[in-house]
């Protein structure tokens, strides 16, 4: 259509001297003011136009003599092109092309070459030629982008989003059917303890593997035989990996306990690629006890904190360590060291030291230092010690401190 030719050129003037200008799309004022559909009124403004506001060349009207449809179609494409800013890519390519052509200020005899070059590069003819090149390129690019059988990578965001919607609708129907069938299958399995004929059972296994191959989550696809062996193997791998870990292994100076998050991060980092999922980790660690690997998964009541700990790990051992620390601190205080149990009188400025058996309380942070584990785990140990009656807590405005549980010894 005639309107396409207006892509890069201005409208034809009705003046005697025809002029050609090249107006690059980047010179158009940003949308929405840059281009505007106007005209089509019954009285003054009969023809359908596009008003174009440019930064470099002022204002234009593109007049579409074939009517509204033409104008609208072009407006649509034009707008899309202005949004996509394809020239930012093609401009770079053009730069490379131009350096190939050269402006002629080359090595050979200066006079002739430059004269020739300037003759070629300057002048109306040259401009028109360049315009035509650019026009042809733009046309080709547009066709690629909006052509039906064009390469998928030129799809616009909207088109891609639409494809997602389409897939979703179609897939929803299909998955609905599948889930319904799977539900009846599971029901039958529960009722009969089997699906009946041998063939049916075979088919069910095939269906299960098909579903699994698609990543569909159903009760059927939960744990297959191959998964079981995968998780067992993973359990052994993690065990081997941690056996040389100094923070974990007690025989290497470690604490014997580690949060799952730490295990996850350490192990996956070491793995580098094909990382395991948290689900895999939990499955694998859950099997360790059964496989007698020397460590097991444990979840603390209350907080839900999950850890991996050595089988020899004992909360009461930790509690005893804490009490030992508390007692040694108390000992130090009673010997006169430290400032515990003393106070300054604000009125007289005297310092009185009361010889009292000072009671030292532990915070989670201090406990962490004593036990050489993270504050999170130390807190769990304090709580566990409290549960078992070794310690009791004192909650003040400055935080929670744990003390030796004297109630037990007092009323023993």
């Amino acid at each position: 259509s005639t309107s396409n030719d207006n892509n890069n050129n201005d409208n034809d003037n009705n003046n005697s001297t025809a002029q050609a200008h090249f107006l690059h799309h980047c010179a158009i004022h940003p949308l929405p003011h840059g281009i505007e559909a106007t005209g089509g009124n019954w009285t003054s403004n009969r023809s359908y136009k596009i008003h174009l506001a440019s930064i470099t060349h002022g204002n234009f009207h593109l007049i579409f003599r074939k009517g509204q449809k033409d104008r609208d179609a072009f407006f649509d494409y034009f707008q899309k092109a202005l949004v996509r800013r394809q020239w930012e890519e093609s401009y770079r390519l053009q730069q490379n092309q131009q350096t190939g052509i050269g402006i002629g200020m080359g090595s050979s005899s200066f006079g002739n070459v430059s004269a020739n070059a300037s003759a070629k590069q300057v002048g109306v003819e040259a401009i028109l030629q360049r315009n035509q090149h650019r026009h042809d390129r733009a046309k080709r690019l547009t066709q690629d982008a909006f052509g039906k059988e064009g390469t998928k990578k030129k799809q616009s965001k909207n088109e891609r989003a639409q494809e997602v919607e389409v897939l979703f609708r179609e897939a929803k129907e299909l998955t609905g059917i599948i889930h319904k069938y799977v539900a009846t299958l599971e029901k039958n399995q529960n009722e009969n303890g089997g699906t009946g004929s041998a063939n049916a059972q075979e088919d069910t296994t095939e269906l299960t593997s098909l579903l699994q191959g698609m990543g569909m989550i159903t009760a059927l696809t939960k744990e297959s035989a191959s998964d079981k062996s995968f998780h067992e193997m993973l359990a052994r791998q993690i065990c081997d990996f941690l056996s040389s870990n100094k923070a974990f292994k007690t025989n290497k100076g470690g604490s014997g306990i580690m949060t799952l998050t730490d295990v996850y991060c350490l192990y996956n980092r070491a793995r580098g690629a094909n990382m395991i999922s948290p689900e895999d980790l939990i499955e694998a660690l859950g099997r360790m006890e059964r496989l007698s690997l020397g460590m097991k998964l444990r979840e603390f009541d209350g907080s839900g904190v999950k850890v991996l700990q050595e089988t020899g790990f004992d909360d009461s051992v930790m509690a005893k360590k804490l009490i030992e620390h508390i007692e040694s601190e108390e000992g130090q205080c009673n010997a006169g060291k430290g400032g515990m149990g003393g106070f300054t009188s604000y009125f007289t400025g005297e310092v009185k030291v009361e010889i009292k058996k000072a009671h030292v309380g532990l915070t989670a942070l201090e406990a962490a230092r004593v036990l050489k584990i993270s504050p999170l785990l130390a807190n769990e140990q304090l709580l566990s010690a409290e549960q078992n009656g070794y310690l009791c807590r004192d909650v003040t405005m400055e935080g929670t401190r744990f003390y030796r549980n004297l109630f037990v010894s007092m009323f023993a």
Partner: protein
Amino acid sequence: MAHRRGRAGIGALKKKGETSKFTKKAEEIKTTSLKSAMETVKQLEIKLTKFAKAHHKTIAKDPAFRHKFLSMCAPLGVDPLTTKKSFWSFLQMGDFYHELAVKVAEVCFAYRSRNGGIMSIKEVQSVLLRRGTKFRLNEVVTNYSADDIVVAIGKLKQLGSGFRTVKVGGTQMILSVPTELDNDHVQVIQLAQNAGGGITLNSVSDMIGWEDDRVKRAMDLLLSEGMAWIDRYEGLEYYWFPSVWKDSFVM
């Protein structure tokens, strides 16, 4: 007069041993349904494969598209992140999110002493970007969005160290400690956020009309967790929240 009993109905059939016919029919129906179910599954697989092949580059490059794709899969009961061998494995999305999860966890741990275990997603993102962290996904370097981080946090949740997201005002924050924060705490943090990172106890009561005790209780927990830092200056006590202080200065 009672009608003849036991003539018709399933009871009669059972008596007469006719149930075998129905069992057989049931089996037949089951097998045909199985066949049609498998057909449906194969159909679905074709559709998904076509889509995945056409769009795997976009999934790698465009976080918004990736997010849309994942949210489409969820209600279908399809998990493209599964580590079990599935045809999604070639997308390597699982790898991407698991690696992202590890990196996010590491950033949270590194900054915990500073912010007490609460950190805005934006801040985590900017830390990773500053470090120049890249991920492998289809062997194409990607950019990752806040949505991606949220998915990664969702994965970390299961590990039981308390990873979760919480909304403070308009900002999404990541919690990496199991401490329970109730609405009061969140509101206090939000007030601090609005005030640019630091508030006094009085300003809290002024702004939302709580009693002093209530304010103190909330603030004490935040203090003890290390999420708030107390600054005693010229007789006034200011409470600073590094997690939102940083946020309001992030460009």
